[in-house]
C-alpha cells in the first residue's frame, strides 16, 4: 500500500473544511451538502480499504508470524524542538487505529448523510458541513498519530471542532455557554496532559543517547511503548511527592483523557454539550471524540502497564464514573441527557476494562489481553449503537421539536422505523444477546471478574442500571401515554426522510451483527490473536441482571402508572440530587465564578489598577508634591534668594569639610 491513501484520508477532510469554510458562503446548500457527503464517502471507502488491507492482506509489513505489526505509513517532521524531541506528523497503522478509522469514517459518513435531512432548514448549513469535515480530519489525525505530540495537536483540534459544533446555534446563549464550557473543561484537562507529556518527554529525551532508547524522538509511540521497561528504569530514581515520576506523567496524561472522555469530575461539559445539533452529539459526543480518552490509554497501554498504580487510578475513576453516570441517567428528563450520561457510563466501562487489564500473570494466565481487547471491542460496538440511539433521538426531536420525554410518549405507532431501530439500540446497550453490546460487555465483565470480584460485581450492577434506564427511556418515549398534542392537525409525528432513516437502519443492522465479529482476531494489546470465548457464568449472570432490570423498567414505565412517582417520593433527596447530577455543576459554578473569577481575577485586576498603576501614579504624584512643596524657595524676594545662595555655599563647604576632615 502506497502512502497516497493514508495521506488522502487526512487530506480530503482538511481540504473539504477549507473549501466549505472559505467558499461555502458562495455555494448553495445542496452543493455543499453533496460535496461534504461525497468527500466523506470517499474517505470512508479509502479507510475501509486501508483497514481491510491491514487486517486481511497478510502483507509482512502488517502481520508478521501471526503478530499484527505497527506500521508507520509515513512520518514527516513537522517541528523539531531538539534533536530528541521531534514532532512528526505521521500515520500509524496498527489494529486499534485501523479499527478506529473504520468507526470514525462510518459514523461520520452516516452523520453527514443524516444531517442532510436533519439540518436541512438551518441557516449556516455550509458552515456545518465545514465543521464536520474539520472534526473528521482532526479525529482521524488523532487516531493515526505516530507520536504523543501529534495526538496532542489533534486532540486540541477535536476540542475546537467540538466547540464549534456545540456552539453551532450561536444565537442561543445556552449553546454558546455550553460550547464554552466544553472547551474550557477539556482544555483544563489537556493542561494536565500537556504537563504529563512535558514530564515524560523530559525524562525520556534526557536519557543517554547511547543508551537503549537511542536517539529517537521522545514523543514516538512505538519507541515509548517498545521501551516501556527501559524508560521505567531510566526514571526510576526520579520521584515527586513519593510517587514515581513516570506514574505521575502517565496519570497526568490520563487526566487529559478524563477530560475528553468526560470522566468524573471532568464530566460536566458533556451533558451540556447536547445543546449542539443532535447528529453532532451522535458523532462527537457519543461515538468518536469522547472515546479518545480510552483510545489514549489503549495507545499508551504498555507504558501504563509498567506503572500499575496508574492503572489502578484509571480503574477507580472509571468505576466511580460509571456508577455515578448510570444513577444520574435514571432521573433525567431530557432524552439527550439520558443518552449523554449513558455515554459517560459506557466509556467509564471501557476505562475500567482497560484498568483491570494488568499485564501480570494471574495464576499463570495473562489476562491483560482480555480487558484490552474487550475495551476496544466495546468501543467499537458502543460507537455503533450509541450513534444509532442518538440519531434515533434526533429523529424524535425532529418530529416532536422537543428534547423532553414528557412531550413524547406512545410514539411507536407514529414512527415505526425510529421505534424499531431505537429498540435495537436499547437492547444492544442493555447487553441482550445477540446484539453487539452483549458480546463486548460480556468480555469486559469477564476481564473485571478475572481481576477482582469486586470490580466485576460493581460493574455488573452498573450494567443492570444501564439496562434499566435505557428501557425507562424507551418506554417513556414509545409507550407510556400518548401525548394528546399528536392528534392535532399538523402536529402528527412521522418518520424522518430517507437521508435520516438510512443511517438508522444501517447502524441498527450493524448493532445486530457486530457482536459476531471475531474481534480478538484483529485487535489485541500485543497483536497476537486472542480467541474470544464466552465465559458462561459471567454471560448468564449479566443476561439475568439485564433482563431483571428490563423487567423492572417494563413494570414501571410501560403503561402510565403512579409507580415512578411513588419511587420518586420515597426518596426525594436522592432523586433530587441525582436529577441535579449531584450538584457538580453548582460546585464548579461556585469555584469558577465565585472563587476564581470574583475573588482571584477581580482582586488581581484591582491590584493592577490600584497598586501597580497606583505606584506609577504615585510616582507622578510624589514628584508633583515635591514640586509644590519646594516652590516657596522661589519666593520672589531677592533677599531670600541670596540667603539660599549663601547658605547653599556654606552648606556645601561645611558638608565637604565634615566629610573630608
Amino acid at each position, binding site marked *: 500500500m502506497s502512502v497516497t491513501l493514508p495521506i488522502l484520508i487526512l487530506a480530503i477532510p482538511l481540504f473539504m473544511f477549507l473549501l466549505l469554510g472559505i467558499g461555502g458562503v458562495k455555494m448553495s446548500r445542496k452543493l455543499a451538502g453533496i460535496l461534504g457527503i461525497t468527500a466523506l464517502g470517499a474517505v470512508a471507502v479509502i479507510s475501509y480499504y486501508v483497514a481491510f488491507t491491514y487486517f486481511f492482506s497478510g502483507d509482512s509489513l502488517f502481520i508478521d508470524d501471526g503478530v499484527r505489526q505497527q506500521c508507520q505509513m509515513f512520518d514527516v517532521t513537522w517541528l523539531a524542538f531538539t534533536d530528541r524531541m521531534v514532532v512528526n506528523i505521521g500515520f500509524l497503522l496498527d489494529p486499534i487505529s485501523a479499527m478506529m478509522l473504520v468507526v470514525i469514517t462510518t459514523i461520520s459518513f452516516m452523520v453527514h448523510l443524516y444531517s442532510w435531512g436533519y439540518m436541512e432548514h438551518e441557516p449556516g448549513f455550509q458552515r456545518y458541513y465545514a465543521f464536520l469535515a474539520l472534526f473528521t480530519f482532526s479525529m482521524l489525525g488523532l487516531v493515526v498519530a505516530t507520536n504523543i505530540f501529534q495526538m496532542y495537536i489533534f486532540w486540541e483540534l477535536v476540542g475546537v471542532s467540538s466547540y464549534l459544533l456545540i456552539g453551532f446555534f450561536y444565537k442561543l446563549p445556552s449553546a454558546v455557554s455550553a460550547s464554552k464550557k466544553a472547551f474550557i473543561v477539556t482544555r483544563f484537562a489537556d493542561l494536565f496532559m500537556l504537563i504529563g507529556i512535558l514530564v515524560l518527554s523530559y525524562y525520556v529525551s534526557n536519557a543517554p543517547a547511547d543508551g537503549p532508547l537511542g536517539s529517537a524522538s521522545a514523543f514516538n509511540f512505538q519507541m515509548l511503548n517498545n521501551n516501556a521497561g527501559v524508560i521505567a528504569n531510566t526514571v526510576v530514581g526520579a520521584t515527586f511527592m513519593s510517587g514515581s515520576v513516570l506514574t505521575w506523567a502517565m496519570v497526568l496524561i490520563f487526566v487529559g483523557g478524563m477530560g475528553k472522555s468526560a470522566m468524573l469530575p471532568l464530566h460536566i461539559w458533556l451533558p451540556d454539550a447536547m445543546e449542539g445539533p443532535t447528529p453532532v452529539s451522535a458523532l462527537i459526543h457519543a461515538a468518536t471524540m469522547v472515546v479518545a480518552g480510552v483510545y489514549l490509554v489503549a495507545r499508551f497501554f504498555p507504558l501504563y502497564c509498567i506503572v500499575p498504580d496508574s492503572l489502578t487510578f484509571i480503574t477507580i475513576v472509571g468505576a466511580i464514573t460509571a456508577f455515578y453516570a448510570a444513577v444520574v441517567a435514571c432521573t433525567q428528563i431530557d432524552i439527550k441527557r439520558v443518552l449523554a450520561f449513558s455515554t459517560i457510563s459506557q466509556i467509564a466501562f471501557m476505562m475500567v476494562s482497560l484498568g483491570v487489564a494488568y499485564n501480570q500473570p494471574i495464576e499463570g494466565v495473562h489476562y491483560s489481553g482480555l480487558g484490552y481487547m474487550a475495551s476496544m471491542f466495546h468501543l467499537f460496538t458502543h460507537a455503533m449503537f450509541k450513534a444509532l440511539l442518538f440519531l434515533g433521538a434526533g429523529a424524535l426531536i425532529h418530529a416532536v421539536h422537543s428534547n423532553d420525554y414528557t412531550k413524547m410518549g406512545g410514539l411507536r405507532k407514529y414512527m415505526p422505523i425510529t421505534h424499531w431501530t431505537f429498540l435495537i439500540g436499547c437492547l444492544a446497550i442493555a447487553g441482550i444477546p445477540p446484539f453487539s453490546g452483549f458480546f463486548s460487555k460480556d468480555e469486559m465483565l469477564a476481564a473485571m471478574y478475572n481481576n477482582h470480584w469486586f470490580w466485576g460485581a460493581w460493574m455488573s450492577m452498573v450494567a443492570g442500571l444501564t439496562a434499566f434506564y435505557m428501557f425507562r427511556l424507551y418506554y417513556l418515549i414509545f409507550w407510556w401515554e400518548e401525548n394528546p398534542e399528536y392528534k392535532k392537525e399538523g402536529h402528527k409525528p412521522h418518520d424522518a426522510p430517507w437521508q435520516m432513516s438510512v443511517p438508522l437502519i444501517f447502524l441498527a443492522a450493524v448493532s445486530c451483527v457486530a457482536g459476531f465479529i471475531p474481534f480478538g482476531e484483529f485487535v489485541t494489546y500485543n497483536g497476537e490473536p486472542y480467541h474470544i470465548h464466552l465465559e458462561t457464568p459471567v454471560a448468564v449472570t449479566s443476561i439475568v441482571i439485564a433482563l431483571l432490570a428490563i423487567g423492572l423498567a417494563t413494570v414501571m414505565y410501560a403503561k402510565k402508572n403512579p409507580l415512578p412517582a411513588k419511587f420518586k417520593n420515597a426518596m426525594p433527596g436522592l432523586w433530587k440530587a441525582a436529577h441535579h447530577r449531584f450538584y457538580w455543576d453548582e460546585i464548579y459554578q461556585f469555584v469558577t465564578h465565585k472563587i476564581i473569577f470574583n475573588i482571584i481575577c477581580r482582586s488581581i485586576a484591582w491590584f493592577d489598577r490600584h497598586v501597580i498603576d497606583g505606584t506609577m501614579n504615585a510616582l507622578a504624584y510624589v514628584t508633583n508634591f515635591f514640586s509644590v512643596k519646594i516652590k516657596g524657595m*522661589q519666593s520672589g524676594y531677592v533677599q531670600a534668594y541670596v540667603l539660599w545662595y*549663601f547658605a547653599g555655599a556654606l552648606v556645601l563647604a561645611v558638608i565637604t569639610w565634615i566629610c573630608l576632615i
Partner: protein
Amino acid sequence: MDLNMLWYLVPSVIMFVAGVYGFVTRKNMIALLISLELMLNSADLNFVIFNRFLYPGSMEGMVFTLFAIAIAAAETAIAIAIIVNIYRKLHSTEIDEVDKMKY
C-alpha cells in the same frame, strides 16, 4: 604686640558677614547696595592682606584689588540706575515690594 595676619583677617571677615547680614535684613535697596559694597571691600581687603603677609614679593593681590574696586564701582552705577527706574514706577525703594514674579 605682634600684628600678625589674623588681626587683619578677622575684621575683614566681620565686614563680610556684616555685609551678608545687612543684605539679608535691610529693606532699602540703597542699603543693600551698601551691604554689597561691604562684602566686596572685605574681599578686596583679603587680597591685600594675603599679598602683604604671605607674598610680600609680588603685587598680584594689590593689582587685583584695584581692578575689583573698579568693578565694584561699575556695579554700583548700574544698580543705582535700575533702582532709579524702579523708583519711577513704584515710588519706593523697598526691596520687599519687588516681588511680583515668583514661584
